[in-house]
């Protein structure tokens, strides 16, 4: 049996982690605001950007 590519597995792991991070109930956590910007706005774009960064780091590795 050929083993699955590690890159695909890492990407899928990021995808699986993204689901709970970007749905309720975790989305109920950020409250209030930071520097006048709502915390939930920062949280959503921050986590989303973080996932994208991880995917970029994994996807652009050699091999």
């Amino acid at each position, binding site marked *: 049996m050929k083993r699955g590519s590690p890159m695909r597995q890492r990407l899928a792991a990021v995808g699986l982690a993204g689901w709970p991070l970007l749905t309720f109930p975790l989305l109920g956590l950020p409250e209030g605001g930071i520097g006048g910007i709502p915390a939930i*706005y920062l949280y959503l774009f921050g986590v989303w950007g973080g996932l994208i960064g991880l995917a970029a780091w994994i996807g652009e590795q050699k091999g």
Partner: protein
Amino acid sequence: MLSGWFVALVATAYVGLLFAVARYGDARADAGRSIISGNVYALSLAVYCTSWTFYGSVGRATSGGLSFLTIYIGPTLMLLFAGVLIKMLRISKTYRITSIADFIASRYGKSQLLAGLVTVIAVIGIVPYIALQLKAVSASLAVLFGQVEAGVLPWWLDSTLLVAAALALFTVLFGTRHLDATERHEGMVAAIAFESVVKLVAFLAVGLFVTYGIFGGLADVFQRAAAAPELSRLLHLDATQAGSWASLILLSGLAIILLPRQFQIIVVENVDESHLRRAVWLFPLYLLLINVFVLPIALGGLLHFGAQSGYAADTFVLTLPMAHGAEALAVLVFIGGLSAATGMVIVETIALSTMVCNDLVMPWLLRSTWINAQKRSDLSGLLIGIRRVAIVIILLLGYIYFRAAGEAYALVGIGLISFAAVAQFAPVLFGGMYWKQGTRAGAVAGLVAGFIVWMYTLLLPSFAKSGWIGNGFVEHGLFGLEWLKAQSLFGLRGMDAISHCLWWSLLANLGAYVVVSLNTRPDALEAGQAERFVDIFRRAHRDTDSLLWRGQASLGELVGLLERFLGPARADQQLSAYAAQRGVGSWHKLKVDADLVHFAEAELAGAIGSASARVMVASVAQEEDLGLDEVLDILDEATQVRAYSKELEAKQQALEVATAELREANERLRELDRMKDDFISTVTHELRTPLTSIRALSEMLHEDPRAALADRKRFLGIIVSEAERLTRLINQILDMAKLESGRAEWTTAEVDLGEVAREAMDSLGQLYRDKHVALSGEIPDSGPVVLADRDRLVQVMINLLSNAVKFVAAETGVVKVTVETDGGMVRVAVADNGPGLTAEECSVIFEKFRQGGNTMTDKPQGTGLGLPISRQIVEYFGGALWVESQPGAGANFIFTVPLPAADE
């Protein structure tokens, strides 16, 4: 004030630019220098962002706050499952899949029924979506000219039709260049990627303008919104919407693959699998960027125009710049919106026209008597014609729907309704890729069930809401049955209409698919296709393809078929390529075998879809009907053959390992053999030296009886010492041989190593005194005690001490013996201040017959066996013997013997 002519000019110039980009992309592709890179591929995926995103997101944000983000988070997460996408790509490339309908139909036994069903669902779900894009173009024009008297510019009254016509022209030119639908439209993809850049730039520009131009930055917008009571709710997520949030992520995650235009771009237009590695993050990054300013613009618009003003939130991106006199920006935004709309319409129309032509028109055409009457004519032109007509009709349908629906809810809300329609493909598509048991009957049942539920709970209610049909079934349930209320089926309440539809339709779809699949038996073709799709990575598909076809066909008929559908030139080109690949000079000499039939079918599949291709090939080839059992047998056999070959491979590897080991052992043996030869020749040499001198001196005494007494005494003295040396040598050789063969006799007892050292020093004392070499010891008074053979250890000590005295200089020589306990070991060191040893010598002196000093010039001072024997002895007792030395710095011979384990 914007002039209508100016806008028309800009729009025309922009569309012209699109044509130029597409032309350039095609020219480069024709020249073999594709401009489709990973970046272009990733950008072309952004065809996902239609005018529904460009204008509609702001509108959604004004009512639902951040919930519009779900539509973009879903695709981000879905793309991360790149393994699924790569499997789809591999299957599609291997079997020349032309569309999502073709993919599903091919998996379930190349079923025309299934292909048609998928096409119908797609057309019903998507045409209104195309209409929505046209409406967006029309609405944006209306806003741009809102202040102008309509009568002044009568020509733009139907500007939407003009746009639709331009799009039709573009799509016909760049979307149907080749008959082979699996061939990529690189010019079109390049144009789409270009449009993606334009719409992103336009949206970011208006976002920055609103946030930093009209307001004082992000924080300012949010703070002002928070101060307004009717806006502050948009800044928080409503936890009661948790269910909708999750289902919208799921829905959009499915849509990114299942929308016909996305399937076209992701799968059919893919040039290289590795481009996915870029797309997996670049496309989500695009989505993130295009969404950053949506909420600020929505809030800005509401703050500026007043929440209750009734201003259309969908056009805030246009009205905000215009209200502040930024007309150039408004034109840029208009162009961005035009990009979003046209990109979607172009790709969607290509995808739909391929499906309509291959999966609706072709099956009907192939059955018609007219086509059969034209047996010999070239149909390739007709095929392209059908596809072009399909493009025009689809666009026309979209335009008509747009005109007919106007402001109706059925059009405005179509975005997610379309998503829900294509989500119905998910169970049969993913099930087909990973579950061999899924059957055609199951797929049809699942699709029909899901489609009906979608119609009843989403599409028809949207018609009712538009006032086109009565809304009794929504308000009171069908036939007045309460539990049949369209948007709270079986009393399910508390979620929005889309989530309600999604859960019920997927339940019905998946349920029907699984239950029917488990209760039906696939036919031979289905079973074969299931095997090929699911095991695409494991199967070298060629082998089973040829195994699964048995029958007869004539070359002439097959070639005739290809010429008929591909055109003679293209058929000749493809056949020649195939012949070259098979190593046959001309395709006229090709043997008709299963492989050739498969080649012909695959070529046809690329042009007319797998289902129709199958029918056409079957019409000229007499295929033996393989039963299901036979097919399964063949597949099992193929699996077994693979297993055997794997086993064989494993065995071969084991064999190679064993061979290598044997070779190594053989090397070692030969080395030993050589060493034995060396040993014998060295031993004989060593024995001969003393013998020679004994013999020479004896002969001299024998032949010269009158030799002087003094000479005789001297000669006899030498003879005696040489004989002693000989005896010592022979004793040591015997000793060595015993040690090496393990036949040496050992007596093990408690031995006081300090005493051993002292005894050895005593017995060699005279030798040291004769040479005036200082011998000192640093030895404890009693102990340490080890378990060993006392005589043997004395032998080692004497050997080391006699070596030392041999190599130090007379008068100035110093030798020091140290006995100490170091951890669990007793460490005995004999250090001298002789000439020392080089690193190389440090290792060779432990070999047999190797002596320190220059053996070429100096008289040998020992037998060369002392150290090897000593090492054997020390190692026998579990210790080690080594030397630490550097040239000129003396040598330090050290050996260790383990202390006995402490008694418990």
